[in-house]
């Protein structure tokens, strides 16, 4: 009986390859099974050959040892050979008797081919778009229903969502747009000063903040903060069957969950946008007065002259459209999720990417529309 130099496996091999005997002794546990497996592979009985495992001196066996022997047994059988255990110690007999032999390994289901998966993606994408429109329609109707019957409105939830989406975002939205206003003013100051037109920094900052940067930056921040949290929250409720529970309790999830969130986001984003406009202009104002040395009242006057009511209104129209889209996209991705925890993470990411994509495309369309058509 040899003891392996690497591990404590004790074994002995007798006989010729057609009828070999492998004797094992001592405890055969998972610390020696890797080596046992190598031995069994090396001495696998070929066609017509037999390998006998003599387990009479085996003091203990665990499921890893059983698995190694079963693997060898299957391998031998597939090659037309035989593997038998004889004789067995009581411990070996018990270990082998504990586990039932499962069926032969099943192949993993093959992943779909290129054509199939491309087709699947296209159909899935189209179906997703149809589902999105369906949700948008349902949610819009639900909002009008809720407004017609204010008694059934969940005012508490609406207030909670509004605080989450609105008040809690004041700081970050204010800070970011202030910095954007500062940066825009600063960048343009350099260019415009070359033409002696430094005062136009006021026009440029005011108009670009109110028409463009205010709504855009606010929407992107809200998409990252609140769109993602809507998607994650609904998705979590979906995978833990809370959404199903609401459905069977007779509470339409689009109404119960979607309406407060959508109303809150539609109300809060324009308000945040007003704040963003103000702080962006403040940033520009500070550059004008502090860096360009323009008299503060002159700069302020110029700013106020530059902004027409329509500038403000068009910005706010945009912000409502952004808000509605962010809310719907968050809800859509949340409700769409299937599976477990990892899907929640994936769907949240996807919802943020989709919202930001939507915001940029919609902003582009609106800008063109407002300048050319109106």
């Amino acid at each position, binding site marked *: 009986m040899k003891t392996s130099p690497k591990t404590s496996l004790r074994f002995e091999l007798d006989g010729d390859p057609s009828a070999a005997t492998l004797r094992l002794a001592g405890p055969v546990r998972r610390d020696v099974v890797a080596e046992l497996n190598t031995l069994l592979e090396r001495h696998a009985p070929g066609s017509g050959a037999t390998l006998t495992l003599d387990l009479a001196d085996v003091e203990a066996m665990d499921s*890893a040892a059983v698995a190694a022997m079963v693997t060898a047994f299957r391998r031998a059988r597939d090659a037309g050979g035989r593997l038998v255990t004889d004789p067995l110690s009581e411990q070996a007999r018990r270990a082998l008797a504990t586990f039932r032999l*499962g069926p032969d390994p*099943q192949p*993993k289901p093959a992943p779909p081919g290129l054509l199939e998966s491309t087709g699947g993606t296209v159909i899935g994408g189209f179906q997703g778009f149809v589902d999105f429109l369906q949700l948008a329609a349902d949610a819009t109707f639900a909002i009008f229903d809720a407004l017609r019957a204010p008694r059934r409105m969940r005012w508490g939830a609406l207030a909670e969502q509004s605080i989450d989406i609105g008040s809690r975002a004041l700081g970050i939205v204010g800070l970011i747009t202030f910095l954007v206003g500062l940066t825009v003013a600063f960048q343009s100051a350099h260019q415009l000063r070359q033409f002696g037109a430094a005062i136009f920094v006021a026009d440029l900052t005011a108009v670009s903040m109110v028409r463009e940067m205010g709504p855009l930056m606010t929407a992107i921040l809200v998409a990252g903060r609140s769109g993602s949290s809507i998607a994650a929250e609904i998705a979590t409720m979906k995978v833990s069957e809370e959404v199903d529970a609401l459905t069977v309790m007779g509470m339409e999830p689009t109404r119960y969950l979607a309406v407060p969130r959508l109303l809150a986001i539609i109300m809060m984003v324009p308000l945040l946008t007003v704040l963003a406009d103000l702080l962006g202009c403040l940033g520009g104002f500070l550059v004008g007065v502090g860096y360009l040395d323009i008299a503060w009242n002159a700069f302020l006057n110029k700013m106020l002259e530059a902004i027409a009511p329509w500038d403000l209104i068009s910005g706010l129209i945009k912000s409502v459209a952004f808000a509605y889209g962010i809310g719907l996209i968050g809800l859509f991705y949340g409700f769409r999720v299937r599976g477990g925890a*990892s899907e929640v993470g994936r769907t949240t990411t996807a919802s943020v990417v989709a919202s930001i994509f939507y915001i940029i495309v919609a902003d582009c369309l609106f800008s063109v529309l407002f300048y050319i058509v109106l």
Partner: protein
Amino acid sequence: MPEIALSVRGLKAGYGEKVILKDVDLTVETGEIRVILGGSGCGKSTLLKCCIGLLRPMDGEIEMLGQRLDQLDGAERTALLTRIGVLFQYGALLGSITIGENVALPMREHTDLPESVINEMVRLKLAAVELTHAEHLLPSELSGGMRKRAALARALALDPELLFCDEPGAGLDPLTSAELDELLMRLRDRFGMAVVVVTHELLSIERISDKLIYLAEGVPIADGTLDDLKYSGEDEVRAFFARQAAGEMRGPQTALEALAAGG
């Protein structure tokens, strides 16, 4: 192999300020199936959480397989944890990988076994819980009872010497439940595995329990064999076996009783 698989002495535990368990003493020998009984919310899961180191006790000590988990760290802690298995109340399978991969996870992490042996081990464990056909499915594609069985297969992945099960029978049909009981008893008899199991199924209790402990509001009020508990001096314990409805006996009066009596 140590004679005592688990020993809990003077355990006091809870969440934050709230004390859930008090004065819990519990000894489980190797090759013994110990059933924890008690109404829901009495702290059974909390007791398991303390044993496996997920909740720090406020007082008392817990020794598993001759070692104290709270005094170990690093490799020694991991080594002790690989010798125990845990079946969580809700399965706790990882949702992003298949059932087979879930069962293989501890084997891949803690052993250097070749892939072919690991795959065979996965099939043995899945066959033991009657789930071979589910190897390549995701947990979200299984029923609740199947998930429970898959989770048991994962708990058994490394042939634990001490197994904790939180309500293994819940959500299973009587036949599967009986087969799982058989499996636990086989592992107890053949490998000397100790099992600590929380269950309410009377049938299952009668089949598997070597010893039982009954918790009432976090305090053990009975500890012994099935007969000891059936003829216990405590009304609640006797009622559990008599009708499994002690709640009715000690519960608050009904609205009718209160209102008809006029306050």
